Structure formats: structure tokens, C-alpha cells
């Protein structure tokens, strides 16, 4: 019965009561146990008669308040709005940098996530903090270096970190998933700094190559790899020697034909099973839109916003508790870029980012 009494003492610690009251309750229970033992009841019978301590805890809530756990992390989070205001005004008055000094306000939701994260396990919370970290880095690089494009690539770090943090299982599948984002980042950076987009876009095909190795079915694996290698080889040959990279794309009809014939390429909209297939479809569609609108209107500076649809849809489908807070960084970026790009009001458009802390405060429980 010692275990039962220890558990009782532990639960009583949760309530605001004097040590005397706590000792009295424990003494009463000891007396009850003595009574029961005197009547010949076994320890199992006594525990059954006393009942589950959760019911006692529930009943005591009528008479005693639960202790409010106060800790330093709450203090730091509560202080963050004041710190943000001080930084904002200091940076504004001293260096006339109201923009991007306003990003100090992003410290408010970030500090909440950080301190809560340190308390519960930092690794998990890094994924939650990534939208804020990337927005801050994006604004700083965009403002200081005027390189909004390709600074937006930072947003691809959000799914990248999420994949890295998603556990140690399925390592190979994770590498395949990551190759999609690394390929994209490498492709855009090479294109940005050298002006060469072909044949470097082949980097986007990395997941197809790596994905083929995931299959344990050998004929399937060799067929996919062979079709890919032949298509890529022919594409490079036609591009280099016929010097027409657009015409060279016809080489991929080999891969597409074999893929469709043998069922490697299927388009399935699967809303079940964590929406994985649907999200892949969204990603592919947004990449197509990004390239199509960027190429047709020479508007890569704004067409990359289509790529934000993947994390937005992922949040809409998967996030349960803090849907609006998780989506707000993306919505703010879209609003900011659209206002800046089309109306050329970058200097005031940053105000859109205030929806991030506002949403976090409204949604905070």
C-alpha cells in the first residue's frame, strides 16, 4: 500500500493546500487502510475499495485550486513583445531602418516556440520555427542584398528540415525526398548565378533516379533506370550537338512512353494516408506553373510564389491545432511580394508580415 500512498502524496502536491492539510489527508488514508486491514481485506481488495486516485483528484478540484506552474520560460515569452518594441524603435531611430527592423516582431511567436521547444525537446520544434526563421532570413537577404529571387529558396528549407526531423526510419526514402529540394535549390542557384538553366534542370530528376532504387522489383528498377539514362543521354546529346535544348526535350518521350506503358507513371489523387500523393501532385503542378508563368511572362521574380502552395496545402491538410499560425508566414510572403512586385510599394508592404504575430496571439491558447 506504500506505493498507493506515495502516489496519493504525489497527486496532492498538485493542489494549493497547506502541508498540514496534505499530511492530514495522507494520515486519513493510512487510517482507512489500517481499518481495512483490520477487517481482513487484502491489499488488492483495499485498493479496489479506495478506488482510482484520479477520481479523488477530480473530486478535490471542487475544493482546492491546482497550483499554477510558473517558470522562467513563461516570463521570457511574456517579455518578448517589449523586447521586440525596444529593438524596433532602436533600429528605426538609430539607423532609420524601420524596414526591415519590424522583423523584430517575429521574435514574439518565435520566442514562444523556442522556449516551449527547449522545454519539450528542441528537435521537434525546429520544424515549427522554420517558417519564422526563413521569413526573417528572406526579408534580411531581400532588403539588404535586394535578392528576393533567389532568397525565396530559403522556404524550401521548411520541408527539408521537416523531412530530416521526421524520424530515423525510411532513411533511403528520406534521401529521395530531400533530393527533390536539393535539386531545386541547386538548379535555381546555378541558373541565377550563371544564367544556365539547361541542362541543369536535370537536377530536378534526382528523385526519379533515387526513387527507382527504392523498388525491390529488379525488372522495374532496371527498366526505369534504363529509360531515364537513355532519355537523359539523348537529351544532352541533342542539346549539345543539335544546340536546341527545347527540341532535345523530345528525348524524354522515351521515358514517358515506357513509364506509361509499364505503369511506372501514374497520376493518383490520394486524399487518404497523410495526403502524400496529393501533395506530390500539388508540388509537380506548382513547379509546372512556376516554370510556365516564369518563362511565358519572364516573371520568375513572382512566379515562384506558386511553389508556396505545397507547404500551404500541407498545413491545411495536416495541421490540426495551429492552422492559421502555421499558414500565416506563407500568406504574408505572398501578400508582401504581390504588393511589392505589382504596386512597387515594398516600403509599406512589409506591414503584411504583422499578420504573423497577430495570428499567433489570436490562436494562442
Amino acid at each position, binding site marked *: 500500500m506504500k506505493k498507493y500512498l506515495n502516489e496519493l502524496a504525489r497527486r496532492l502536491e498538485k493542489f494549493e493546500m497547506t502541508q498540514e492539510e496534505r499530511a492530514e*489527508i495522507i*494520515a*486519513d*488514508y*493510512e*487510517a*482507512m487502510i*489500517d*481499518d*481495512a*486491514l*483490520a477487517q481482513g481485506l487484502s491489499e488488492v481488495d483495499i485498493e*479496489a*475499495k*479506495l*478506488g*482510482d*486516485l484520479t*477520481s*479523488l483528484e*477530480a*473530486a*478535490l478540484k*471542487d*475544493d482546492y485550486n491546482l497550483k499554477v506552474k510558473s517558470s522562467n520560460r513563461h516570463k521570457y515569452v511574456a517579455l518578448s513583445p517589449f523586447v521586440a518594441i525596444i529593438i524596433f524603435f532602436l533600429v528605426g531611430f538609430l539607423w532609420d531602418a524601420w524596414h526591415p527592423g519590424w522583423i523584430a516582431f517575429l521574435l514574439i511567436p518565435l520566442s514562444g516556440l523556442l522556449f516551449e521547444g527547449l522545454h519539450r525537446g528542441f528537435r521537434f520544434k525546429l520544424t515549427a520555427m522554420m517558417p519564422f526563421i526563413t521569413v526573417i532570413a528572406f526579408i534580411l537577404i531581400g532588403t539588404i542584398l535586394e535578392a528576393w529571387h533567389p532568397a525565396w529558396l530559403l522556404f524550401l528549407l521548411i520541408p527539408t528540415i521537416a523531412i530530416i526531423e521526421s524520424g530515423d526510419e525510411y532513411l533511403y526514402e528520406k534521401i529521395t525526398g530531400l533530393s527533390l529540394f536539393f535539386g531545386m535549390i541547386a538548379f535555381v542557384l546555378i541558373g541565377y548565378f550563371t544564367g544556365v538553366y539547361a541542362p541543369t534542370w536535370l537536377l530536378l530528376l534526382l528523385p526519379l533516379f533515387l526513387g527507382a532504387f527504392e523498388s525491390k522489383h529488379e525488372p522495374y528498377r532496371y527498366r526505369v533506370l534504363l529509360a531515364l539514362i537513355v532519355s537523359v543521354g539523348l537529351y544532352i546529346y541533342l542539346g549539345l550537338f543539335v544546340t536546341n535544348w527545347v527540341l532535345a526535350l523530345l528525348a524524354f518521350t522515351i521515358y514517358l512512353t515506357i513509364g506509361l506503358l509499364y505503369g511506372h507513371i501514374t497520376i493518383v489523387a490520394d486524399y487518404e494516408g497523410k495526403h502524400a500523393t496529393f501533395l506530390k501532385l500539388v508540388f509537380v503542378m506548382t513547379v509546372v506553373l512556376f516554370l510556365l508563368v516564369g518563362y511565358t511572362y519572364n516573371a520568375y521574380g513572382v512566379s515562384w510564389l506558386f511553389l508556396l502552395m505545397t507547404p500551404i496545402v500541407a498545413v491545411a491538410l495536416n495541421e490540426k491545432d495551429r492552422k492559421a499560425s502555421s499558414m500565416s508566414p506563407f500568406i504574408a510572403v505572398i501578400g508582401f511580394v504581390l504588393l511589392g512586385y505589382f504596386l512597387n510599394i515594398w516600403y509599406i508592404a512589409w506591414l503584411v508580415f504583422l499578420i504573423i504575430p497577430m495570428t499567433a496571439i489570436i490562436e494562442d491558447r
Partner: protein
Amino acid sequence: MNSQLKRGIVEIIVLKVVSDRSQSSFNVIETLSSKLSVSENTVYPILRRLTKQGYFKTHTVPSPLGAPKKVYEITALGTEKLQMFLNEWRLFLKQVFDILGGYET
């Protein structure tokens, strides 16, 4: 049954049981558990609350088998409260039966 309602009714029963005979909390639960599905962990907080409210007083009696026993005894205030509860309870039951039909008092 709604746990809040059940707790309220058990409170009246505990007052009645202790008013019939001064007894220890274990004996109260023994009396109750033979007829109702309740555990000590439900009854004990009620005994404690009623004592705090002055409806019970406690005293200890020596026990040959261990530590002295705490015995609950109803006070004049408790008796008055029990009477009030019983009157309300009977009136409530009558009204319920009038509407739903059933036991005639």
C-alpha cells in the same frame, strides 16, 4: 448518471449515514458500497468538505489494531442541513415523478 448530480446525491446520503451513527470514513464507505457503486476516493472528499463546512465534527477513538481512528459525527448544523436536503430531495422527486410518472409517494 451525470457525475455532478451523483456527487450531490452522495453528499445527502453521506450526511444521512453519519447522522444515523457516528463512524469512521472506512465504515461510511462500507455502508455505501454495499448499495451504491462508489469508492472511498469519491466519499472521502465529501466527508472532508462537510467537516470543513461544520456539518461534521471529528474525534479520535483508540483502536486496538493500529493508529487511533478518526470518527465523523454529525453536528446540529449538519442535522439541520440534512433535514433541509431531505425536504428538497422529496419535493424534487415528487415533481420528477409527476412529470415522468412512476413511484407514488
